[in-house]
């Protein structure tokens, strides 16, 4: 599904269909995914058409830039580290590219969106919520529903800690696609109440292609969000 498309084009697989048809000097974009759909008229000129996995915080409306993944908790020994594999929800972006400018045309997903609150109403953040399985190896995923997150967990503290959730900032969220969709992140746990997370520019396997970062490319190009990460101040379980 993912990649660069020449238009007119058509993709039809399972319950996902999208197409761009020429209508005189104009183009017509149509899309259906489950019960949702889109229909719009475009003047494409020489724009490029990309279908990429994008940061999963756009549906049904963009209300946050944080992704929270809850998983069966892992107990970390003091000053130890481990790598686990989780899943994250997929959102598919139809993106128009023209002279290095990218515009998100449409978003759809087969994953059911759900939101949550990490922390308190006063000082917490709204998050896109996802419940994941946990695995020590690459789990099986459905390329239209979920991707694989490789999470490196490091317990920097001197006590045992149970970790059962991770919150990632979508401001810098490189997602890669190939045989599956993937993302890599690290989580430095300082205590049961405090941790720091960063999404890394690392594909899980070689040969994967980096997807266009819609949020970064459209709004925050000048901010170094990679270094910023997210500080989880309201607990890790």
């Amino acid at each position, binding site marked *: 599904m993912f990649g660069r498309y020449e238009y007119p084009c058509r993709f039809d697989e399972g319950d996902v269909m999208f197409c761009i048809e020429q209508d005189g000097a104009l183009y017509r974009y149509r899309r259906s995914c489950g019960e949702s759909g889109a229909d719009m008229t475009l003047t494409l000129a020489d724009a490029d058409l990309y279908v990429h996995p994008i940061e999963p915080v756009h549906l049904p409306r963009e209300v946050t830039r944080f992704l929270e993944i809850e998983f069966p908790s892992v107990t970390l020994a003091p000053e130890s580290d481990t790598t686990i594999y989780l899943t994250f929800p997929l959102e598919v972006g139809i993106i128009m590219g023209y002279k290095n400018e990218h515009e998100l045309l449409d978003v759809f997903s087969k994953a059911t969106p759900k939101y949550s609150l990490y922390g308190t109403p006063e000082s*917490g953040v*709204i998050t896109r919520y996802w419940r994941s399985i946990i695995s020590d190896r690459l789990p099986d995923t459905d390329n239209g529903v979920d991707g694989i997150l490789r999470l490196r967990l490091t317990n920097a503290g001197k006590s045992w800690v149970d970790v059962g959730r991770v919150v990632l900032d979508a401001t810098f969220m490189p997602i890669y696609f190939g045989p599956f969709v993937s993302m890599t992140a690290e989580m430095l746990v300082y205590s049961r109440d405090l941790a720091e997370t960063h999404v890394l520019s690392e594909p899980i396997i070689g040969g994967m292609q980096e997807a266009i970062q819609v949020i970064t490319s459209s709004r925050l190009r000048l901010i170094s969000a990679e270094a910023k990460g997210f500080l989880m101040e309201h607990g890790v379980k």
Partner: protein
Amino acid sequence: MTVAVEFLNEVVFGNIRVADLIVFFVIISASIIVARIIGAHIKKSLTDRVKKDELEKLIRIVQVIIVLIGIFIGLPSFHVDFAELLLIGGAASIIIGFASQRLVTSIGSGVFLIVERPVTIGDTVKIGETSGTIEDIRILSTTIKTFEGIYVRIPNETVFNSEITNYVANVARRFEYRVGIRYSDDAEKAIRIIRELLEAHPFVLKNPSPSIYVDELGVNAVIIMVRIWAPSREWWSVRTEMLLKIKTALESEGMTIPFPQRTVWIKETPGSAPAPVLHPDVSDKHP
């Protein structure tokens, strides 16, 4: 040299010499330079917080005050009698002060609102008796678009002294429904149906999780309390959407919202005439 001294001592007007004029203009020039430097600093620090035109007004006010101070410092070179000036200035200040009391209070309140930021543009708020969305915060006034789409301008003094309720200051908020079902309906099943509906809605927050329980055994109905947390900026759409969905889902399972009703027991005593049987009047039926 002598020529220069003579020039400086040359009387221009009354007892004002050229030297006095030079000293005065140096002080004024210095105050203008200081005013510009401070203006630039204000611009740098408040650009993100204050609208451009408002910021320019604020800078202009500060700069005028600095230049007035410069004039006040430079005036002795003109041999001005300060006692007289203070008397006139004092009297003028009192008059101006009384005349512009509310204006100055509003400006002060506006500055506090900009710095303290209890509300920001786009927030849904209630200020005093006015509810709506903040459209603009200016130095003198705050404008609100009410939910009816009416433009309301509130002086900042009033905003500052009023009770302010900001509905979106916290990222999430809770709301509740009281859903009544008949005594003959299965309350556990109703709770299960409502819970499934809430779980399926994206903006009904996973955490804090919704709370659904039988709250009251009412006169006409079993009251089920439904408490929901939603993102503050989405809560109204969730609230309006979910109530209809709950009603529809319960009705599709044969549960109806009961009407007020009363069971009347008529006691028949031996030997008395039987109570008349009441039949509904068909003419009262609606078409």
